[in-house]
Structures are given as structure tokens and as C-alpha cells.
């Protein structure tokens, strides 16, 4: 059980700053942007990205949380999960550019569930996907638009993301 650190604290913050710039570039500014994180750590990352984008663009960008538990297709394969709160910014999602934010992209099933969950809330004009770590092994035709770091991994390995707000420590490790 050896854990190897693949992203240190400074790497995480550099990756997020770069993603913030990329989001602004692809959206041509901060207009109509809404960042929605997938609990738990995706929400923290969405809040951080919203702050970074707000600083760079000098205008406030709303961030929220989008729980996908009730939309998952693998509920019967695990002990019952408790849903987490969904918080949609007051401006809503209709006609907006929604950036979904998650910590690790693996099979892509959470993102499929997130697209369904989003549909039940409203109709965004555009949906993009920002991810801190892409570890491969996709099971669905889903591709991120903004990536912090690609980390090739074996299917059996565990990728752990730690963030100060949720875990009291920061960094990404990979465990055999």
C-alpha cells in the first residue's frame, strides 16, 4: 500500500488557475457562466474556480452544487448512498453556460448522471466539464473540456484527492 503523490499543493493551485483562464478564454469572458460542482470535492473546486474567475474577470461568477446520487445507474451495486444537497444559484441554469466541476474523472458515469440531473433543473445553452484529475478508463463517450492533469492509472489503483476545505490537507495521491 504505497501512496505516491502526483500533485502537490502548489500544483493543484496552478492547475486551477490555468483552468480558470481556459474557462474564461473558451467562454470569451465571464458572461452567463455558472459553475456547478459534484459533491463532495467537486463543490469545493467549483467554489475555488468561481473565486479565481471572479478575480481575473473582475465580476462575480455564481457557483453551486449538483447532487447526482438519485440519477446514478449503479445504486443497486453499492450500499445505500445518502444524497447530498443540491444548490443552484439564484440566476438558474436556463440559457447559461454551465461548467460541471469534479475532482476525478474515471468511468464517466457520474457525469452522465450529472447531465440527467441538470436536465431536471433546466436547459442550459452549453454544458462543459472541468476536472482536476483525468485518470482514464472511460466507460461512456464523455470527454472533459478542461483538465488539471492527466494521470495514467491502472484500473485497480486508487486516486485520492485531498482538499483543505474537506480533508484538512491538500494534494493528489495514487495508491496501488
Amino acid at each position, binding site marked *: 500500500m504505497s501512496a505516491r503523490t502526483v500533485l502537490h499543493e502548489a500544483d493543484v493551485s496552478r492547475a486551477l488557475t490555468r483552468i480558470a483562464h481556459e474557462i474564461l478564454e473558451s467562454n470569451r469572458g465571464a458572461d452567463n457562466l455558472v459553475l456547478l460542482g459534484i459533491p463532495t470535492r467537486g463543490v469545493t473546486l467549483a467554489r475555488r474556480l468561481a473565486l479565481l474567475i471572479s478575480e481575473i474577470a473582475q465580476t462575480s461568477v455564481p457557483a453551486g452544487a449538483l447532487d447526482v446520487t438519485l440519477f446514478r445507474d449503479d445504486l443497486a451495486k453499492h450500499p*445505500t448512498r445518502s444524497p447530498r*444537497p*443540491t444548490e443552484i444559484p439564484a440566476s438558474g441554469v436556463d440559457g447559461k453556460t454551465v461548467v460541471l466541476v469534479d475532482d476525478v474523472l474515471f468511468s464517466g458515469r457520474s457525469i452522465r448522471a450529472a447531465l440527467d440531473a441538470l436536465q431536471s433543473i433546466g436547459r442550459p445553452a452549453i454544458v462543459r466539464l472541468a476536472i482536476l484529475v483525468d485518470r482514464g478508463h472511460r466507460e461512456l463517450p464523455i470527454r472533459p473540456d478542461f483538465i488539471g492533469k492527466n494521470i495514467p492509472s491502472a484500473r485497480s489503483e486508487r486516486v485520492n484527492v485531498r482538499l483543505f476545505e474537506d480533508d484538512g490537507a491538500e494534494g493528489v495521491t495514487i495508491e496501488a
Partner: protein
Amino acid sequence: MRHLLDTRTLDRATALRILDIAEDMSDTQSREIKKLPTLRGKTVVNLFFEDSTRTRISFEAAAKRLSADVINFAAKGSSVSKGESLKDTAQTLQAMGADAVVIRHPASGAPQTLATSGWISAGVVNAGDGTHEHPTQALLDAFTIRKRRFGDDSRGRDLRGVRVVIVGDVLHSRVARSNVWLLTTLGADVTLVSPPTLVPQNVSLWPVRVLYDLDQALAEEPDAVMMLRIQLERMNAAYFPTEREYSRRWGLDAVRVNALPGGSIVMHPGPMNRGLEISSDAADSERSTVLEQVTNGVSVRMAVLYLLLAGERDDERGGDL
């Protein structure tokens, strides 16, 4: 969670988990599209041996909002009126592929029998059995009290220090029993107010205080007053002289409701006997949560069905919740 049979054996953590998931379910019910795909392909049977409108349609709405298929089985006009036993009815439902059975039965303990007899493998939800328990009603009452008190900040909170007065026919009331166990587990102080003839014999073993005078209980400024329905169909003995006298002494009239402190709420599980245990002034006042209780009932039942049906079956893993 495998079954939901009572609130007496429900521990605090499980009760809070149900209430917190109900909060999430309630959030989804304010969305444009209220239907969730969560229980697609599961079948819920409403097995009702007693008349019920609101509990049955509440369970039906909850199951449908989660995309489960619903089969309604009312005993009246069915094979049961031809003398079929509970065992045969249950096994018929099992053979049709029921994943959960929501049962209401006039005999206390019928859901327990269904869950433990080995006749069926489906999860069992008690929707009211005799004078025993009605756990989802108590859960929705606790949810309503918590929501009125803490609003959007309700998640994770219990009812410590909340003072609840339950008034009326405690003797025949499964709602009162389920509420006594659940509310005290969650830390609330419960006072029962009832005519001496309608107090159960073993009440001294319950974690509650019993008063016979409603005005005395209301003078202590409770946070919630829960009025029980006088079950006219069970009034088979002279429990009180006249309805008029009952209404005077134990009914919630305009004078009593106006004397309550600011934040107090008035609850009733329905259906109400207006003019008997509750006056129209009280039922229609700002304090009344009667309709909120109905709305919250759907969310709470969605949470219960979710916990019973969504995850891996406990008996396949040997875990719980």
C-alpha cells in the same frame, strides 16, 4: 434499511438519516421536472386492508416520483373478502415480483408478521397497523416540526428541547404511539393530554408526561400542539359523555389557539373532524401545518422507499443501512 415496521426500535442516527434524505427529496420536488429515475424497474405494492386515502395516495405519489411501478391492492372487493389469508395474499404479490410492500392492516403486528415470517422477500413498510404504530406519519410530523423550526438549516438537527403536546384519543392512536417513540428519541419533550378514559393502561412505561387538562398544558407554551382525530369508528364505549363536552374540554378552539405563543404550530394528521377536536379557526390559522404535513409526507415516504429499495440489498452483504 430492510424494513420500516415501527419507530420504537428506530435509533437516532437512522431517524436523522431518513429525515435528511427527505430534505433532499423535498428539494427535488420544487424542480421543473419532479420525477426522478432512481427506482426505475422496482415494483411497490400498496396493500391496504383498511380504508385510507391520504396515506395510500401519498405512498403512491412517492413511489411514482421515484419512477417505481405501483400496484394498489385494496382488500375491499378483492380475494381477501373471499377469505384469503394474509400469507396467500402476500405470496401472490411476491410471485408478481413486488420489491416492497406497503401494508395497512387493522391487526397490530401484521407488518411484523409479513416481514419476519419468510413468506416474502420484499421490504415491508408499515403504513398503520391496528393501534400499534404508523411510523411514516411520525417521521413526517418530526420533519414538519424541524422544518418550521430550522427552515433550510434543518439537516442533521434533532428536536432537543422542543416541547410537543399530543392531544386526544391516545388509547386508539397509532399516530400518537409512533410520535411518542420518535420524538423522544430525537430529544423532544412530549406531553400527552387526554380524557382519563382514553389514556392507555401502560402509559407509565412511556417516556412522557400525562395531563388531563388541555388548558394547563397550553399554559406552558408548547412549541407544537398535535391534535389527534377522534376515531368515531372506534368509539365503541362511553369514553366521554357527548361530543360537545369533548370539544369544550379537549378541542382546540379559537380562544385556545390565539393564546398560544408566537412560534407555536398546530398539527393534525388528518382527516380532521372540524368542530370536534379542532375548530375551523385553528385548522385554517397561520399556525396550522396540516397541508405542509401532507406535502412533507410525500418527501418522507420517498426517503423511506429510497432507503429500502435503492441500494444493494442488506441481506446480500450482511450490512445495515
